[in-house]
């Protein structure tokens, strides 16, 4: 199996062997450091961002440019969408210009699949609503693989699970790779249906962290307060926040997809500590995305 020419809507588009191949390619690129390669020379990649995200867009853009591809960026705030052009027409217009691969971020679930009605080029989902964020899950898993060498670990994902595409894709991928996953947070953030991912659900943050090899914090957005998902950020932090007292029992690594709300889901004493791998996640993100682009667009063999 190869992912050449394929789309990546979510992690379950991948076989375990594909994941291994991506990791090995990412590791190869990482060994070579940030030197410029030419395997995607002459390829045009378009990043389509209907929802603002600086870090993911830049990570993809760097990955593509380091492989020698030409990159064009479409961001909704500066483009035709403001003039009322539909998603459909936007994609059809771009496609008519000859794009070899799309990277799409959208606030609407399913929009990467919808895009495929209007283009034959491969599409990589860079986050669609609360549905999926497969490249984040891949870079998270890659980081775990680097740290632990395998997936025989316990990981707690803590925070607003319900509204998190990162939690969904990670639950799928980490289960697929054999990790023991626990989703942690208040009941309002973890409907019981999440058990169907084959994960455990816990509302006891202290116990969960104390039993984990890795802890992943998720952003808790202030806007959820108005929906009654929690009362105050302060109360949330006290009962569900990741702090050094909770971390010191088992001393797991700390991960976070960013952007972090320090003082809400995590205290600075943890996010900026030695157990934090947040910056490595960001670094690995570029290499994992390089690997994906290289494998999908069929660059030169290493």
């Amino acid at each position, binding site marked *: 199996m190869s992912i050449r020419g394929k789309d990546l809507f979510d992690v379950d588009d991948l076989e375990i062997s594909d994941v291994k191949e991506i990791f090995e390619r990412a590791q190869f690129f990482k060994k070579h450091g940030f030197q410029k390669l030419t395997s995607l020379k002459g390829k045009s990649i378009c990043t389509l961002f209907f929802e603002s995200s600086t870090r993911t867009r830049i990570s993809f853009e760097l990955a593509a440019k380091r492989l020698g591809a030409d990159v064009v960026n479409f961001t909704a705030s500066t483009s035709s969408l403001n003039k009322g052009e*539909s*998603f*459909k027409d936007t994609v059809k217009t771009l496609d008519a210009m000859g794009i070899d691969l799309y990277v799409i971020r*959208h606030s*609407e*679930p*399913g*929009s990467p*699949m*919808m895009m495929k009605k209007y283009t034959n080029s491969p599409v990589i989902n860079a986050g*669609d*609503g*609360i*549905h*999926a964020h497969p490249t984040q899950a891949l870079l998270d898993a890659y980081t775990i693989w680097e740290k632990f060498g395998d997936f025989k670990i316990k990981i707690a994902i803590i925070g607003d699970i319900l509204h998190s*595409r990162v939690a*969904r894709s990670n639950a799928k991928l980490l289960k697929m790779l054999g990790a023991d996953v626990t989703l942690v947070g208040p009941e309002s953030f973890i*409907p019981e*249906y*999440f058990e*169907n991912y084959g994960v455990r659900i816990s509302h006891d943050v202290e116990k969960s962290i104390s039993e984990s090899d890795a802890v992943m914090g998720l952003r808790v957005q202030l806007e959820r307060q108005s929906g009654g998902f929690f009362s105050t950020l302060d109360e949330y932090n006290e009962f569900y926040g990741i702090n050094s007292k909770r971390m010191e029992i088992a001393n797991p690594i700390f991960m976070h997809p960013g952007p972090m709300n320090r003082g809400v889901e995590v205290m600075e004493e943890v996010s900026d500590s030695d157990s934090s791998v947040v910056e490595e996640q960001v670094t690995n993100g570029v290499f994992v995305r390089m690997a994906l682009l290289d494998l999908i667009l069929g660059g030169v063999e290493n």
Partner: protein
Amino acid sequence: MIFESAKIFDGERFYSGEISFEKTFVQREGDRLDLGDVWILPGLVDTHAHFRDPGQTKREDLFSGAMAAFHGGITTAFAMPNTTPAIDSETMVIYLKEKAKKTNLDLKIVGAITKNRDGKELSEMLRMARAGVVGFSDDGNFLDDAGLARHAMEYAHELGLPIISHCQDKYLGKGHMREGWFSTLYGISGIPDVAESISVAREIELSYLTKAHIHIAHVSTARSVNLIRQAKKDGINVTCDVCIHHLVFKDEDLYDYDTYKKINPPFPTSHDQRALYEGIEDDTIDAIITDHAPYLNEEKEVEFQSAPFGIIGFETLLNEIIIVSKNGLKIEKLLKKVSSDPAKIYGLEVGRIKEGLPANFVIFDPEGEWHVSKETLMSRSSNTPFLGKRLKGRVISTFVEGRQVFGDVEKIGKGILHLA
């Protein structure tokens, strides 16, 4: 004219024989046509549809809607009041009734409970009743104000007309599909089942208080079915219907984010769908409706959560009934739920083949097929998940008061039938 068939459905059961008719079904001699095994059904009765007329006629109007109804074998249809402006006055009711006369369709009008369907002030229910509405509904909007709903029911009771309630709590009802494992998996915001049953429970309690006939529209959850079953046992004046699409599709079918499958209430979980089948089986559910809801392609071809709720349904009703009958429900039961049973709820003298009733009937070839496309659909809109598919079962022709309003039955004779 006399039609013979081995499969005539009179609204209750199939028999082998003949029908003779003028404007009504009568006993007389005349030309005979033997239809063999092709079915003759009463003109179907769809008590929940959106004709988009007036004000939204790019999607549909009474003429295109009537043709679509005839193409689906429907001869009596209810127009829900969510038009622009809303059907909330006697003038609007008269306007629609007059316009409907030019279409041959037996159109029944449902008046809005509140002015502009905005849940604030009661509309002129007495005057609309004088103009001939068959019931009242703020369709699409659940009337939050229980005090206002109580008084609306008191008027409805006095008038002997039902309140048709779209039961959905607006605070719990924010979402785009049924909440459950599949909404979690697909990352689409979910509407919990109790958003419906909480409102159903309130309507049952208000019916207990006012003795009004409450009709729950498009029931879609097990808990609603259970509440209604119990209320019926308790002697509450409650009836309900289910949308045909909810018997065919489930929440998991939204895996492709196809906006042509987006509907409100959303497609049921398999657990809820089983309860809907059981509700039909034991007659807790009184009728099957289409909730025909035309939308333009450009309105539907947008991102899933931005797309409006609604699917057209007239033209595929019998095809879907065939599909559902293969899932275990008896065909007679299903046909009854789109003919004599809905007529009974509203006290209408249609939906049966019986001497003296209007000669509204359908000639339907269950072995025939048709290809669903923008060209073959008579509706002005084509927002159906069946678009591009071939479906089993084909309406050959439809008669209203003895006149053929759709199709070409004359061309049919024994032997050439299935070549069509």
